[in-house]
């Protein structure tokens, strides 16, 4: 216990040290303060921006897009994974597809999506779904594979029907792996949507960063950037902690 606490403390110290180093480098002028804002000013810029409310609209836009993409990806991916798992032939057929899916930078489809669906929320949602769904499918397959056969046998001895076996035995047994997939899906959806907004879009947090960059407004740029990074890290940490709680109970010795 004390070792893990030391690790956490050292980790915090390392991060704080890096931030302090950057601050000093900027202040002394080794890093051009015109290019990189000192961290203290980044925080100030972020607070100003949040206070002024100029990011409010972008936030609503971006978070609702990510939420929608994530929700669709989880539903589609879990369902799709379950179907593929149930049909071995189908699984063999799409195995190579899944294996190379993340080798292709999904993001390059974005221009096509924009051409197809216009420059609104829809292509971003589709992009998010495209980047997140396969992760859910893969983790669903892994989760279902990982259900110990003996638990299915117990379900039969207890004379549960198909639906109850799925709901009461298979799903809880597969949950830790499913959760891992959901976690990845959230970060993939987040990365996809924000990258889309950043490269080619007319609204959202990603857009406000690239807009600030194009108009040489580095305070606005760093403020929005820091906010996005903090939100992403916060969301991931939350899921990480939750997953840890879930897993701790069941870790088998």
């Amino acid at each position, binding site marked *: 216990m004390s070792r893990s606490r030391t690790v956490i403390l050292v980790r915090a110290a390392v991060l704080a040290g890096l931030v302090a180093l950057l601050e000093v480098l900027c202040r002394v002028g080794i890093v051009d303060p015109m290019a990189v804002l000192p961290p203290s000013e980044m925080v100030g810029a972020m607070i100003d921006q949040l206070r002024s409310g100029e990011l409010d609209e972008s936030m609503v836009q971006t978070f609702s897009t990510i939420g929608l993409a994530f929700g669709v990806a989880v539903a589609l991916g879990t369902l799709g994974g379950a179907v593929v798992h149930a049909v071995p032939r189908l699984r063999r057929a799409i195995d190579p597809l899944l294996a190379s899916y993340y080798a292709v930078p999904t993001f390059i489809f974005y221009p096509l999506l924009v051409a197809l669906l216009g420059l609104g929320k829809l292509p971003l949602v589709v992009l998010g779904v495209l980047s997140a769904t396969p992760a859910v499918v893969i983790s669903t397959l892994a989760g279902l594979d990982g259900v110990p056969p003996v638990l299915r*046998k*117990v379900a*039969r*001895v207890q*004379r549960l029907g198909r639906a*109850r076996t799925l709901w009461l035995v298979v799903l*809880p*047994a597969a949950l830790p792996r499913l959760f891992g997939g959901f976690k990845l899906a959230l970060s993939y959806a987040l990365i996809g949507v924000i990258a889309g907004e950043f490269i080619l879009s007319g609204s959202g947090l990603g857009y406000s960063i690239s807009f600030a960059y194009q108009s040489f407004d580095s305070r606005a740029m760093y403020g929005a950037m820091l906010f996005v990074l903090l939100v992403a890290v916060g969301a991931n940490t939350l899921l990480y902690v939750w997953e840890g709680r879930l897993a701790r109970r*069941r870790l*088998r010795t």
Partner: protein
Amino acid sequence: MTGGVGDIAVMEEPHASLRGVVRRYGGAQPVHALGPVDLDLRRGEFFSVVGPSGCGKSTLLDVLSGLGRPTGGTVSFEGAELGGEVPDGVGVVFQEDASFPWLTVRDNVAFGLRRTGLDGRETARRVEHAIGFMGLGQFAAHYPAQLSGGMRQRVCIARTLVMQPRLILLDEPFGALDQQTRLLMGDELLRLWRETGATVLLITHALDEAAMLSDRVGVMSARPGRFIDLLETGWPRERDSRVVSDPAFGALTSRLWSSLRTESLKTMGRAA
């Protein structure tokens, strides 16, 4: 003496019986795993099956429980033929840890009862009784991950027990446990058997376990598994692990071993 086991129990209607049961597995290299096997289990007896590894002991349990269908022959329980389903009144304890890691001990034990339509108070009473009976009282709120292997196996036994099965099938339930724990679990099993009055079929690879616990022991041959010997131990119903110091115990285990030695050598690819 293949297939002659059933003749002994002609007087009474058998509790469960196998008639000419054969199990083959298909595939690229077909395997003849079991049989033909005939077996009658007497109501309320403690029957053990021993045999060399890979002889089809687990297949026998699969077929008898209704988890698997035989390729040939018939299986019946309480007079009714099995049809690919586990019938009501049969409980199975597996060798692997089959406790549900997402449920507490209490919820694990209550798992089956919650779906029987039994009223809440009766459910709780039976669950607490099973938990107490298996000595899990102080762990009722624990998750399986917090328990040792032996304790988890107790959870699985309690989960079976609470359904009040009339036939309990155990597939090497203590296979993964150390010797001392095995002996103690054996005593628990005897106590359970006496109190519930259920018929028990225990599959084991431990000759001493079979000799100590059973009324009768069936010895199986190397694959395809058939019964090659059958022993009546003659132990009184009130017995426990102390029978190991009885001179008869040594005679029993040595007879079991002499029946098994040839078969075990066969599975290791050697002539006797």
